[in-house]
């Protein structure tokens, strides 16, 4: 009996040793004539739509950059790894990017859970990461209140988004009774809801109903029927556009005519395709104005290259890339630590506004939300709205 156990144990050890023998042949970081930039995110799994758009955008931008002579006289190489939307996979992918591929910096991932999990690895190897749409506050600031030295992001955070939505609904639209339908299994949705509730009630509004569903659900009529009874003026829908399309359609079918409001999970051409009538007159707290002439070239180029509609993530990936490009130029080096230092120094004009990273929280400073109203199946920009 003992012998057998011993055997298995020794196999384990032999395996470990065998593997360790293969170690130590890592290619050195970004040397030679290329600068390597990594990207991680979901290319498979529930969030594949967004991840695919991010990586596509980056591929396009890198091609463009290389065609124009590259960066610091070197060609840029993008390396893209799938995380399946899983945090443990993200940690592996980042380790591989850093230790094996030798990237100078990382862009992504497109979800907060993965962005938080990779912090420890980034700190260990001192490689900066710029998250695209990871809006959970914990991405750049730990639970102990200290800023994480190598985590950055180009988007605003959930509390801000929730507070802006509440402030706009109460102050500008003058609506006093709000209902919330949210995804209990989503960190994004929970954070958004919490801060919407807080700001809205502080201002004197009333939350008349708060109903939840679970990711993967497609039928929201039970919750909506209950919301209907509470007779709200406005319904907050803080989740992604597939569920938005379904729940908005179902709300209208049930005869609910309250104004709908949502966040950056909404904007998409698909939403229009699926639910243009239902969301007519709704408001979105967004990162940018889609019809801004400055955004057009990017949209058109993407559409021409991939024949797919541009998702919000593409814009954020664009800005993350521009920020990184500026930082590498500013550092005049591909040394990750120097790039990290430069990230808080540079200011770039992105498609989602001017981006300057704050030193104390690594979030973009003073980024105002763009309030967009849906009129005639179009995203009509209303105003830049920040919270005082």
């Amino acid at each position, binding site marked *: *009996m003992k*012998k*057998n*156990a*011993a*055997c*298995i*144990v*020794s*196999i*384990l*050890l032999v*395996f*470990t040793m065998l*593997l*360790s023998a*293969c*170690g*130590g*042949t*890592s290619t050195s970081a970004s040397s030679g004539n290329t600068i390597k930039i990594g990207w991680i995110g979901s*290319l*498979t799994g529930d969030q594949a739509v967004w991840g695919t758009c991010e990586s596509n955008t980056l591929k396009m931008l890198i091609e463009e950059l290389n065609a124009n002579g590259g960066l610091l006289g070197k060609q840029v190489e993008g390396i*893209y*790894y*799938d995380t*399946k939307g*899983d*945090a*443990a*996979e993200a*940690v*592996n*992918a980042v*380790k*591989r990017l*850093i*230790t*094996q591929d030798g990237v100078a910096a990382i862009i992504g991932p497109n979800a*907060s*859970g993965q962005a*938080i*999990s990779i*912090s*420890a690895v980034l700190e260990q*190897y001192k490689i900066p990461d710029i998250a695209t749409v990871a809006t*959970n506050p*914990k991405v750049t600031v*730990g*639970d*102990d209140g200290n800023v994480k030295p190598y985590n950055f992001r180009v988007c605003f955070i959930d509390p801000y988004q929730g507070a802006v939505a509440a402030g706009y609904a109460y102050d500008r639209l003058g609506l006093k009774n709000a209902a919330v339908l949210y*995804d*209990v*299994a*989503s*960190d994004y*949705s*929970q*954070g958004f809801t919490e801060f919407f509730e807080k700001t809205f009630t502080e201002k004197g509004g009333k939350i008349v109903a708060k109903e939840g569903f*679970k990711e993967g659900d497609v039928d929201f009529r039970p919750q909506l029927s209950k919301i209907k009874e509470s007779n709200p003026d406005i319904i907050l829908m803080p989740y992604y556009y597939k569920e938005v399309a379904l729940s908005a359609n179902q709300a209208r079918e049930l005869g609910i005519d309250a104004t709908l409001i949502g966040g950056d999970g909404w904007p998409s051409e698909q939403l229009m395709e699926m639910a243009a009538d239902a969301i007519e007159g709704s408001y979105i707290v967004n990162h940018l104005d889609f019809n801004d002439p400055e955004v057009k070239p990017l949209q058109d180029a993407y559409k021409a290259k991939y024949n797919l509609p541009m998702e919000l993530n593409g814009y954020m990936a664009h800005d993350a890339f521009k920020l990184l490009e500026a930082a590498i130029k500013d550092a005049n080096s591909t040394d990750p630590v120097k790039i990290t230092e430069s990230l808080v120094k540079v200011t770039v004009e992105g498609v989602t506004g001017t981006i300057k990273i704050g030193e104390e929280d690594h979030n973009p400073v003073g980024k105002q939300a763009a309030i967009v109203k849906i009129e005639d199946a179009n995203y009509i920009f209303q105003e830049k709205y920040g919270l005082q």
Partner: protein
Amino acid sequence: MSWDYVSGILILSGINLMTVLGLSLLTGFTGMFSFGHAGFMAIGAYAAATMTMKFGMPFFAALLIGGIASMIVSLLIGKLTLNLKGDYFCIATLGFGEATRLILDNVQYFGGARGLSSIPTVGTTTLPNVIIINIVAVFVLVCIIKSRHGRNMVAIREEELAAQTIGIDVFKYKMIALAISALYAGISGGMMAHYLGYIQPVMFKLVKSTELTIIVIFGGLGSVSGSVIGTILLTFLPEILRSFYNWRLVIYGAAVILIMITRPQGLMGGKEISLKPVIRFIKGRTDKAKEEVKS
């Protein structure tokens, strides 16, 4: 391959292996099929993380508490559901796993869906620790399997009715198998929490449970060494395929079917790798040497 990257995957293999070992006892030796072990991992992960973060408990003690917490829950679940047959037991465990996730999503003490971050990672789930824990786990498991109790479990897997007839307390042994597998899953969850430094209910989805069960089958039902090798191979496989990101899950799915069709006994299929011949060989040599010295 760089060592840091490989050691990361090895740690992950070790974390998976812990749960797989437990599942091996449950599925491979006792013949029960669970879709809910991600739930047990979640309980272990949250319990252990709470212990180290909020009560400053040492890592190993916290792991043990995580394991025991999920074991207690498993006793409760087992009491209710172990009398159910095949698919009905499956669905009960599936429901358990999803319900656990839903509770964690809603409880704000554990951060809700936003999860728990800043779990200490330094000096906790390191490769040596993971290896030590797994060695102990394998040793304990082999002891159980080789004992009378282990043989009883195999009897239940092979022919439940017959086992009952010869006086084996089927319910009791199923319960033991479930409890031990939950204990292992809980410890594994605790290790995972301290490896990632962050846990979120979303990490413990149904897919996680099925992945782990697939590993058990891949390695071979009723073989501990099969589970060990299966875990390491299947944890590395997606990493090797990482560059073909789009197709890797397609290949994974096809591989699972292919194995079921062509080699249903899995890699090891009830056999164990044994070093006996090697040992005998070495012994023979030394004996000979001794004789030579004598003569």
